[in-house]
């Protein structure tokens, strides 16, 4: 690979950089689009997330008990 690059003429190398940059931009854009899509999807399930977020101070005692039992 390194040899390939060193053998490449200047113009071709520049062209390849341009092409790779374009591809990288497209990949990043796709990645971001997928991330945003996932976030929109999660927001669609907001009711469930709100229910899951319900916690009380009593949960803390349960978590501590659970933790202590597991680590005995």
């Amino acid at each position, binding site marked *: 690979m390194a040899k390939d690059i060193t053998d490449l003429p200047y113009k071709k190398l520049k062209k390849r950089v341009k092409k790779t940059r374009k591809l990288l931009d497209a990949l990043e854009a796709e990645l*971001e689009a997928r991330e*945003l899509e*996932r*976030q*929109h999807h*999660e*927001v*669609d399930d*907001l*009711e469930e*997330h*709100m229910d*899951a*977020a*319900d*916690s*009380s*101070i009593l*949960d*803390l005692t349960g*978590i*501590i008990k659970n*933790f202590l039992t597991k*680590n005995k």
Partner: protein
Amino acid sequence: MTNQPVATAGAEETSILKSTVQWIAVAFLVYLLITAVGMIGSGFKGATKGDATQLFEFATNPFMGLVVGILATSLIQSSSTVTSIIVGLVAGGLSVEMAVPMVMGANIGTTITNTIVALGHINRKKAFRRAFAAATVHDIFNLIAVIIFMTLELATGILHKIGAFVASFLVGGADVSVKGFNFIKPITKPVIGLVKDFSEMIYAPWANALLILFGVAIIFFSIMFVGKLLKKLMVGRAKRVMHGAIGRGPVAGITSGAIVTVLVQSSSTTTSLMVPLAGAGSFRLKQIYPFTLGANIGTCITSLLAATAITGATALPAMTIAMVHLTFNVLAVLVIYGIKNLRMLPLKGATSLAKLATKNKSLALLYILGVYFALPGVLVLVYQMFA
């Protein structure tokens, strides 16, 4: 076939009726909240006979006020409830200067809820690291905010000066609640009187204390049920706000956090619902951070609402403390999030803390017990020893 539109129309009618009933219940609960704040003010005034300083002498040390705010909010798990009670206490004669650290303590105490939610992920390493960071970024931000603004407040009184200045525009003379339009007293006075009479009937010497207790209980339940109802009623609107903020940067994040918190009347709900989303890897810490800051601002709506309950001579200090709450949270976001070096502190702190807690899970438990209970407890003991 023809029955289908009829059935749909019937379901729609039932849904409209249901939401109308729920909205009426919300209005009634808000009325109860306002009335309960008035009860606390009236009971406190009666109990201290105008000299509230004596009763709250322990809180003359601002540090103790802070501890009271942290402990009360950690135990009740609702900063709205605690700040509304503080508004009632100020209306009853507690000085604004004494109340400011309590309000700041409420800001720290309220962060316990999302940290408990993060502990729910303790058995899944990666998810726990992300969830714990998402929860503690809020804790660290609020701790830094208190360190900066409590120092500033003690040195210059800047927060309560700004609060008093803004409140003076909203509150008129001694006989009006909201400038030029006194509508609160006539609607709350009969109920407050009724509960007062009832308290006297139970045990006359403790009537004022009972009135305060009833007020606290009513605030607690009204905020709890209003939260539950608004979650159902406002979830659609909250979704639209959040969809609108996705991919739009930190200002949109802060704004949406504030709006969603106003809609559901609970910063704990707003900040906690993001924790599982962070745990699942759907939202990054950098995206959750501004959203939780918005929650700090949005939660001030309840204390502002509570302050409208107060009429007469104490209306101005009551509105002042509510404004101090808002000013503190807005300035904290502007200063800490606005200055890059400060902005990065909660992010770096939360990330490091989450890494440590993932390696040694008992650290996570020690952190929560230490910050919210042991540390305030030790500080109370130290204060008692030197007082």
